[in-house]
């Protein structure tokens, strides 16, 4: 890498570290069991032919080696705690520490899902409080906290739609999905037995209303809409969209992935949405954890409430909370137990810390940050849609491809400047997309560093294209061969002697 004035980083810290199996040596250990206060048993006698012969070849290592192994590995990860992580549609915001502390309180983290309701009033109160507040935030009437993630919430939401339509006599055949939608939307519709019909966007990036009018009929169960959509554009025709659907007996599903643009400023329930999911790991600050656990509550209007998964938490006249299983029209369960309760705790702690004014300010800052990035980078990068942006902005690599450089290359070069890349090549309606979502968590200083980096890379695309194409240069590993990984998959470690 040439000697650049890169303000944020010099190089990523890294020590070499093998697989944990490669540290193993017979007899090393990191545990000591308790004294047994009951007689030992003969496992062979207890289990007979069900006794395991050879032990699983798990590593034999000591405690310090475990600590060092996972500490070294951790330094190979970029994280929100290091800096801006502008993955569009992922809402990589700050994960407050108090959330982690309260989720680990023994009475919450140690609660068994089948302990009697009388001895679970605290956990049920957490769930009920969160449920009530999310209902208010969404402007809906009812909610389930059971879904484990966003896509799981989508599944639940479409199940609700189907159950409702069936109760009206006809589940219908198709779900309309805009071409800008997340891949989970069509995959979900298929899981609930619906055909997927593509709905085109208009030149401004919004739903093509004429197409919607033409495609909407009694065969269509509804529309799955992300609003703001994956272009970061709020579909201003939302009232009309809902009306077209409702007029022909269809339902409007909102993918709440981009709810960080709306909280405290507008409520989906007020603009005609019948059912929606939230991603607590996006909008409500529960940590992404390297890819989960998430949580995907589904909120709905009154007419869909009878179909919610069971159980739901209800409050008796005496203030006692209980789990209501007596829901004959319920779609059933989508998960064992009650959902990712640990995430419910964290999301509620976040809402408590914010209050109504904090949530509104959060949304305003998120939208302001995206627009600030947009105003500074427009022209340097191609802006395919001039329509105003909400919480994220989508550029294309059109101005850079003339030097043979694609969005993926720019993303890799951004790593050298100390940032996590934006979302690459999505949404697919934009060729060579750069999808940038700063979130509210970025200070002005960090945004300016990011903008400087993006500008500098744009210059490099013209002056030193090979530098960009070869990036990243500052990481422990250079670009990885994904084609080779897929051609001959190696999905587990094996000892060399085997």
């Amino acid at each position: 890498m040439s000697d650049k004035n890169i303000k944020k980083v010099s190089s990523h810290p890294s020590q070499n570290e093998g697989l944990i199996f490669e540290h193993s040596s017979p007899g090393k250990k990191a545990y000591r069991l308790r004294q047994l206060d009951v007689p030992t048993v003969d496992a062979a006698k207890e289990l007979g032919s069900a006794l395991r012969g050879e032990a699983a070849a798990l590593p034999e290592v000591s405690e310090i080696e475990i600590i060092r192994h996972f500490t070294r590995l951790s330094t190979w990860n970029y994280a929100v705690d290091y800096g801006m992580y502008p993955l569009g549609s992922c809402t990589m915001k700050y994960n407050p520490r108090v959330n982690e502390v309260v989720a680990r309180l023994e009475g919450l983290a140690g609660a068994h899902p089948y302990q009697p309701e009388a001895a679970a009033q605290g956990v049920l109160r957490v769930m009920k409080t969160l449920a009530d507040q999310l209902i208010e935030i969404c402007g809906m009437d009812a909610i389930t906290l059971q879904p484990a993630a966003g896509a799981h919430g989508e599944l639940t939401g479409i199940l609700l739609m189907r159950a409702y339509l069936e109760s009206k006599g006809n589940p219908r055949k198709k779900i309309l999905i805009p071409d800008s939608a997340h891949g989970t939307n069509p995959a979900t519709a298929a899981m609930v037995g619906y055909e997927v019909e593509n709905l085109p966007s208009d030149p401004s990036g919004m739903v093509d209303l004429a197409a919607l009018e033409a495609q909407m009929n009694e065969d269509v169960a509804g529309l799955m809409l992300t609003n703001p959509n994956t272009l970061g554009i709020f579909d201003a025709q939302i009232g009309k969209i809902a009306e077209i659907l409702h007029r022909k007996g269809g339902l409007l599903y909102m993918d709440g992935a981009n709810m960080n643009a709306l909280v405290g400023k507008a409520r989906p329930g007020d603009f005609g949405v019948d059912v929606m999911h939230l991603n607590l790991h996006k909008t409500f600050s529960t940590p992404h954890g390297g890819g989960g656990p998430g949580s995907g509550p589904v909120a709905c209007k009154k007419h869909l409430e009878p179909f919610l998964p069971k159980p739901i938490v209800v409050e008796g006249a005496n203030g006692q909370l209980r789990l209501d299983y007596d829901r004959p029209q319920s779609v059933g369960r989508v998960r064992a137990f009650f959902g990712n309760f640990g995430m419910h705790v964290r999301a509620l702690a976040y809402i408590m810390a914010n209050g109504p004014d904090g949530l509104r300010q959060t949304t305003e800052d998120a939208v302001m940050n995206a627009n600030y990035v947009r105003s500074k980078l427009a022209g340097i990068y191609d802006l395919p849609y001039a329509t105003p942006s909400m919480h994220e902005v989508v550029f294309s690599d059109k101005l850079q491809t003339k030097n043979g450089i694609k969005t993926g290359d720019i993303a890799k070069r951004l790593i050298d400047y100390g940032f996590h890349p934006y979302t690459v090549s999505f949404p697919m309606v934009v060729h060579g997309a750069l999808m940038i979502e700063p979130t509210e968590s970025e200070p002005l200083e960090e945004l300016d560093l990011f903008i400087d980096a993006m500008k500098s890379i744009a210059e490099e695309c013209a002056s030193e294209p090979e530098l960009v194409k070869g990036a990243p240069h500052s990481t422990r590993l250079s670009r990885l061969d994904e084609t080779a990984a897929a051609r001959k998959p190696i999905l587990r470690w094996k000892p060399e002697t085997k």
Partner: protein
Amino acid sequence: MRYLPKSPAERELMLGEIGVAKVDELFAPIPAEFRLTRDLAIPPQMAESEIVDWFRERAAENANGASILLGAGAYNHYRPLVIDSLISRGEWFTAYTPYQPEIAQGTLQAIFEFQTMICELTGMEVANASMYDGSTGAAEAVMMAMRVTGRGEAILARTVHPEYREVIATYAKYQGMPLSEVGFTENGRVDLAALDKAITPQTACVLIQSPNFFGTIEDVAAIADVVHAKGALLVVSIAEALSLGIVKPPVEADIVSLEAQSFGVPLSYGGPYAGVIATREKFIRQIPGRLCGQTVDRNGKRGFVLTLSTREQHIRREKATSNICTNQALVALMVNIYMDVYGKNGLRELAEQNLAKAAYARKALGAKSKVLFEGAPRFNEFVVQTKGNAEAIRKRLLDEHNIIGGLPLKKYYPELGEASLWCATELTSKAALDAAAEEVGR
């Protein structure tokens, strides 16, 4: 607001740069009629100390410190302290799905290790990076069997966790996948003769759980023979992962769906947990969820990437193997660390302790009540039929002894009468078991 890193002056400056006078102008795309012009009706901002207090109060309302003699899909095992110490590093919990492998090698290598450990434990050839939990994992495994065989029906053992079966029913309903159930015999195991009769040329798979919901270890090899003779696949769900420390892995299965909660994951009132699907190499193109694979960088150095993504929703959209996107990476990391702490020998010794506790518990509780399903091996759970009302016994144990007793089964298996499902782990004290035995026998 303390999480927002802007001063009023900075906001002014930024709005000026954007070219608007007020932030509300940025919300102009939202039609005025849909804009919220009031505060959300939620409580005002709370201080950190107030938040901690509020949750401490709630935590105190949950039978804190009670002895838990209950499993049923959620197991009370000790969590080594290094787990939370390590996963509290921001590099682990504030990162996302490793879409950019050069700056996500930590997460990727940890997943690769996890996949390896799951293969070792289950005797399968490949494992995915995790599913939401054991129940949804089982549902996905059943749908996977449908894709592999091209057949459209599934048979579930009634000894599979009742809530898992409910989840599978929800998933299968609109896949056009008829489900049927097969019962159990006197010893609590799948009724082999009935199973043999139930399998048809349309049967994609048979799902069993082992140890099953009653704690009984199924004769997996015998079931596999029956299932495979008719060209169906055998899917084995394992809810108590620790059993694999001492119980023979279900190597005869075609797909294993494991709930890994026992390995260092807090009970947390039912979640987050981590499911995982393991299978044979020949089925990898049909496996749902993320897979991590080994590769090399441009200099030939070993590294890891997410791979075989053409199975997944972001590429295949409505033709994907599943709609799953996010999995349970941080929970899988806990599981990885747990397996490192106990390792090859520790897992076995720990499982032996569970076996010993459960044997004692069965003897104690069985002294004055009837332990059901004799004649087949068990791990750490068992069913007790009582003379008295199971709910009443449970209430007395809680009120008078601070013990969370066995789960009454009448709701799920009315034919068993006053029966309840008990569990003893390494954390269960002899004293708690003796006290429970007293009440159960009353």
